[in-house]
């Protein structure tokens, strides 16, 4: 009977969230792993020793609705640790087990644009907040209060944590299909849900691309030498070719209903959009300076997909 109820629970959880729940044994293993990554002392800073853990469900208690962003990736477990030092603002570390390096990179890529400070596989420091990713982990390190020594303190705690994470991870595979010329590496955004895509480049309040936990998307910014005006390339991978085709038709109907089978049109800002399905993928170029540039970027991406797909 217990097995039956457990099976029902698992089924409902996966159905509702698209993510496998972490079981107690797995969760305990993760906790032990994560505790090893956070040092008890860093210089004169000492861990308070009251580590807190939150999973996909309980993390709302810690961060309210902000938890939805982490849940929109494969977030498994959050460990929160507070470091204290006399006459200094306490430093909070939030270490997220993201389930995969792709999603660790994804949550990191949600906000970049500040200073790269050489911590982990990618870092971003500004306004008293350090964000970095390494392997399957993502971390926020920040001061509880504003203080003069804030930057030094935060970075001094971030470095050993990143050092303790021994295994590096891969960025999402989709990135290898992006043409390199003119690509702004720092602008790469990896996501699953349309709300996150809209944060970076608003398309529609409604989910016209049929994005969900099972889809993988990357948005890249291109800065052509001659204009320096941003062109965006969106590449989305669907679980099946049929789902990709259905999503493509939904997108064209809502966003570019006047498009012929060429799927390249001029939009109201005087720039060009081009869209194309390819196998399990959808490719869309937004805000290209000309029809030729839009179609060339699509073509280059398509070639990469054909060459590099098994």
């Amino acid at each position: 009977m217990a097995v039956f109820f457990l099976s029902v629970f698992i089924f409902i959880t996966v159905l509702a969230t698209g993510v496998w729940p972490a079981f107690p044994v797995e969760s305990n293993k993760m906790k032990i792993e994560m505790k090893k990554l956070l040092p008890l002392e860093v210089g004169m800073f000492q861990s308070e020793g009251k580590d807190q853990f939150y999973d996909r469900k309980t993390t709302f208690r810690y961060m309210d609705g902000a938890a939805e962003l982490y849940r929109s990736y494969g977030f498994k477990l959050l460990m929160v640790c507070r470091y204290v030092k006399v006459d200094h603002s306490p430093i909070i570390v939030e270490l997220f087990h993201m389930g995969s390096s792709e999603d660790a990179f994804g949550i990191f890529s949600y906000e970049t644009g500040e200073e790269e400070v050489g911590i982990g596989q990618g870092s971003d420091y500004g306004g008293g907040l350090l964000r970095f990713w390494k392997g399957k982990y993502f971390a926020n390190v920040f001061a509880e209060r504003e203080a003069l020594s804030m930057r030094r303190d935060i970075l001094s705690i971030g470095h050993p944590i990143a050092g303790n994470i021994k295994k590096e991870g891969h960025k999402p595979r989709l990135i290898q299909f992006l043409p390199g010329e003119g690509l702004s590496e720092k602008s790469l955004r990896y996501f699953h849900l349309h709300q996150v895509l809209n944060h970076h480049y608003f398309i529609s309040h409604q989910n016209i691309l049929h994005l969900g936990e099972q889809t993988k998307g990357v948005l890249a910014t291109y800065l052509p030498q001659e204009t320096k005006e941003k062109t965006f390339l969106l590449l989305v991978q669907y679980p099946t070719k049929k789902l990709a085709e259905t999503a493509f038709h939904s997108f064209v109907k809502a966003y570019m209903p006047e498009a012929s089978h060429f799927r390249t049109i001029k939009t109201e800002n005087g720039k060009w959009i081009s869209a194309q399905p390819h196998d399990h993928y959808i490719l869309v170029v937004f805000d290209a300076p000309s029809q030729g540039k839009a179609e060339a970027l699509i073509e280059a991406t398509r070639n990469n997909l054909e060459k590099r797909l098994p």
Partner: protein
Amino acid sequence: MRGRKVITRRDFLRGTAYTAFATAFGSSLKGEVKAEEKVKIILIRDEKVIDPQGRINQKILQEMLDQGVCKLLGEENPVQAWKKLIKPTDIVGIKSNVWAYLPTPKELEDAIQQRIMDVGVQKKDISIGDRDILNNPVFRSSTALINVRPLRTHHWSGIGGCIKNYVMFVSAPWLYHSDACSPLASIWNKSIVKGKTRLNILSLIRTQFYNRGAHHFDRRFVSEYKGLLIGKDPVALDAIGARLLQLQRIAYFGEDRPLDTTPNHIFVADEKYKLGVSDLNRIEIIKLGWMEGVLI
């Protein structure tokens, strides 16, 4: 969602997004004012409510609250004004907000509690709470609620305002996060809440007008606006609040940076759940006090 027009980036490029919203939600955003009476809300500000050390002045805040509530209810004396809201026999829950980075100021909670006690409610029959309210005996048996929280942007719902502040009255808040949290106003129909709210207060002492950071918080995007927005209609307060945050972003960045999510839940609270008025043309803002940089 069925039957709604799909609004895309191209609607914004054409400058037709607001018309599209009006079509989608049935609001009259084109400037026509419906025949109904306007909803009155009070904006009161005081330059000195925050001192040079960043501390909130309790006395000034109490005066701001008193003036605002008196103006709203057409009374000269604050206790008389509060008597129009609360009876001595009421059991009162003050629904606050404890979000660590920008909580409801303690001074504001105290000012509200003081006036409720002045009306004659015993202290044991008053509780200030947020995340624990479903286990709080005062909230569970409350006959009146005061809704108070700071105004801020919110990643998943566009803004955190009066409507969203009641999400803790349900045991599974995440079930209300779909479609940019559009079902939030349905919580106001639950028996623990329905018909009990006597006053809504949006604290604009400090507002967060843009999201960034670990918890979508960055001190650089917090403004000391030094105001309170007071009214009976939570939807009207949120609609004006959303507009204020937009104007603060424009003032700070020199351009309108869109919210992560458009606060659809405000329109939906009006059009679907009939909780209040979201149409800016149907909201009358009575402004009191310091007006420098008022924006709205």
